[in-house]
């Protein structure tokens, strides 16, 4: 059935129905032809038997007397009758097989051996219109008064029966062809109509771009049939899929704020720390207003503090806005990330190993937002995993083909549930965060890959993101 596999169901089923009808038609035709053959055989056997019996009665005494003329005259008169048209030749021989007379004496001369005529002749009970031969040969004993006094060889013209059989075959073939054609067409239309909902369902499932769409109510079959239930179930599934996608989108959105939330205390601290210095500086300015050098130093101090505050605020705002920017990734983004993660690093008393080298061509067409989210989430996770006084690292390298990001920490290895969220597409178990799953989704969206390793007490998450070249981009 493999060649039929790509064929749509609405073609396959009518074809199957037509094939079954052909099979049924062939079997029925075979039965009809067999019956016809049996009837014809019975007819020809009955006719031949009557012929032989009639001749036996008429010719018995003549054959006994070897009365050639009377045998011939009887055969000749019999041949003039209706039977004669079927019996194209009849020869009668004596008990030694010598021909006494035949209806065609020139073909079967007197005193010739009847075996020469009856070479392929069969006995009465084996007489059969077997298809190809228009003339059948029969050899029967001539029984008179209970004993065999001679033999009768007869050739029967069965061409009309063969013609009848051929006509029956033609009628059957033509009739079956017309019937099967009409029924197949009707079957095709009926099947197509019945299967339209399935076709619609298949189209909705396979041909929709982006997300699946519901089957319009007008196209759902009426009633409570299987197909109607199937369509309703499909629509419910589409709803569920859309709801799930929306939930995931909202979750991802929330995750961004979660990440910022997780940063907020650190960031507050980051803002709060300079504030004490700044207030001290303003007090100093106020107290030593007459001392320009002190005022200048204090103003410098205030300016540095305010610039730091401005940077922190900008980075925070940028991080919050990343989904709306279509800016390409650049070294500044990593600087922003370093600034964002620094307070968390400081809070945990961690060592930060920072190594970013994008000179290999990564100033490339790669959206900044998703990459920043990926790195931030991984770094936050690393910070949390490292515990106190650990080591967290980021290594970013741009190659010809891809940008490689490697986030390390010296904490314990990731639990299996976290790995599942990062490396697998399985359903999210309740209770876990969505940050790692968001990383996975973003990496997938960028066509990249994620690897995990834990060696020598260092957990290493490596992300590879393919770089879209300018030329390729231009072609698109």
């Amino acid at each position, binding site marked *: 059935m493999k060649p039929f596999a790509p064929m749509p169901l609405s073609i396959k089923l009518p074809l199957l129905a037509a094939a079954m009808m052909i099979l049924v038609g062939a079997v029925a035709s075979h039965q009809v032809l067999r019956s016809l053959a049996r009837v014809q055989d019975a007819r020809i056997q009955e006719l031949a038997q009557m012929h032989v019996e009639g001749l036996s009665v008429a010719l018995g005494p003549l054959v006994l007397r070897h009365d*050639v*003329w009377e045998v*011939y*005259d009887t055969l*000749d008169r019999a041949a003039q009758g209706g039977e004669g048209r079927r019996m194209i030749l009849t020869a009668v021989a004596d008990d030694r097989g010598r021909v006494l007379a035949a209806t065609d*004496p020139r073909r079967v001369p007197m*005193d010739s051996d009847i075996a020469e005529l009856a070479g392929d002749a069969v006995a009465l009970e084996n007489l059969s219109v077997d298809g190809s031969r228009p003339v059948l040969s029969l050899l029967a004993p001539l029984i008179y008064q209970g004993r065999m006094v001679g033999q009768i060889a007869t050739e029967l013209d069965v061409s009309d029966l063969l013609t009848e059989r051929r006509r029956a075959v033609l009628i059957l073939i033509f009739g079956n062809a017309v019937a099967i054609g009409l029924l197949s067409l009707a079957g095709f239309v009926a099947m197509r109509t019945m299967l339209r909902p399935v076709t619609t369902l298949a189209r909705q499932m396979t041909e929709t771009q982006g997300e699946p769409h519901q089957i319009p109510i007008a196209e759902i079959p009426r009633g409570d049939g299987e197909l109607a239930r199937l369509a309703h179930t499909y629509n419910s599934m589409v709803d569920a899929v859309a709801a799930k996608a929306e939930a995931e989108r909202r979750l991802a959105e929330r995750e961004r704020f979660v990440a910022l939330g997780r940063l907020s205390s650190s960031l507050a601290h980051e803002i709060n720390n300079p504030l004490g210095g700044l207030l001290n500086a303003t007090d100093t300015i106020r107290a030593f207003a007459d001392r320009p050098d002190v005022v200048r130093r204090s103003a410098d101090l205030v300016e540095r503090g305010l610039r730091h505050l401005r940077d922190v605020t900008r980075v925070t705002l940028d991080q919050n806005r990343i989904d709306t920017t279509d800016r390409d990734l650049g070294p500044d983004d990593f600087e922003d990330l370093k600034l964002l993660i620094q307070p968390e690093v400081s809070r945990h008393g961690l060592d930060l190993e920072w190594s970013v080298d994008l000179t290999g061509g990564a100033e490339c067409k790669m959206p900044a937002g998703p990459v920043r989210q990926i790195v931030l989430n991984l770094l936050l996770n690393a910070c949390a995993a490292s515990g106190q006084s650990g080591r967290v690292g980021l290594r970013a390298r741009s190659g010809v083909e891809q940008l490689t990001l490697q986030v390390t920490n010296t904490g314990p290895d990731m639990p299996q549930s976290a790995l599942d969220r990062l490396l697998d597409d399985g359903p999210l178990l309740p209770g876990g965060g969505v940050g790692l799953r968001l990383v996975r989704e973003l990496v997938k969206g960028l066509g990249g890959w994620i690897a995990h390793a834990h060696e020598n007490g260092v957990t290493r998450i490596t992300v590879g993101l393919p770089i879209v070249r300018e030329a390729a981009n231009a072609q698109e």
Partner: protein
Amino acid sequence: MEHLIKRRTLVQAGIAALVMGQARAQPVFRLGLTPVFLDNDAVVIDGLRRVLSRGMGREIELVQRRTYQEITGLLLERGVDAAWLCGYPFLQHADLLDLVAVPVWRGGPRYQSYLIVAAEDPAAGLADLRGGTHAFSDPDSNSGYLVTATDLRRMGERAETFFSRSIFTFGHRNVVRAVADGLVRSGSVDGYVWEALAEIEPDLTARTQVIARSEWLGFPPVCARRDSVGAEPVQGLQRALMGLEATEEGRRALASLQLDGFQRATPDLFDGIADRMRDLEE
């Protein structure tokens, strides 16, 4: 002679005649015929019967047998009052039989025996037929047996050995059929019958050809027992036969038989046949 009718019809006609005859005051006159001569045409035979019956003033029963031997036997044992025989059986029993009348055909009371073969047969005479199959009409027929048998005897041959096989068909028309259909290669047939068939069944005779004709021999006569030939019934028959030409009905009957009439005859008419009989007996 428009229809060739089966023998059964003839028998029925005979039975009908018998019944009618019994109803009359006069005893029925029984006339013997053989299918050897002018085979079984009931219309012709019945026409002849009616005109003779009228001429004789009594009913005639036609008694038909298969062979000359049977009819001759009937005549000799008085099973029939008279019979239309052949010259050969008449001569065989010349001591007991006498002539009543002889048909006149083509101006005379004589006919010939024909030796026939199929139309496409290259044989030109009896000598060319050696080893072939042959059809005689009746062992007691002059034209249908005696002529060919004596011709062979004169050639120093015998029919039993000259031909690979010979059959008797007991009818001159049957001889023509046997040759025409190819059942046998050659046949001995009454020339009068062959010529009559050439008129009424030309398709049949066209499939044969005459390769030899005998000398003119005495036509098959109507005979009666010598002891009854002078009696009234036979005399009545003789008068009726002689008088056929006189009536319209009689002429029609003669025309259908393709005969000119009947005449008296003496045994010397059959001298030719007697010669052949002697040749055969030697």
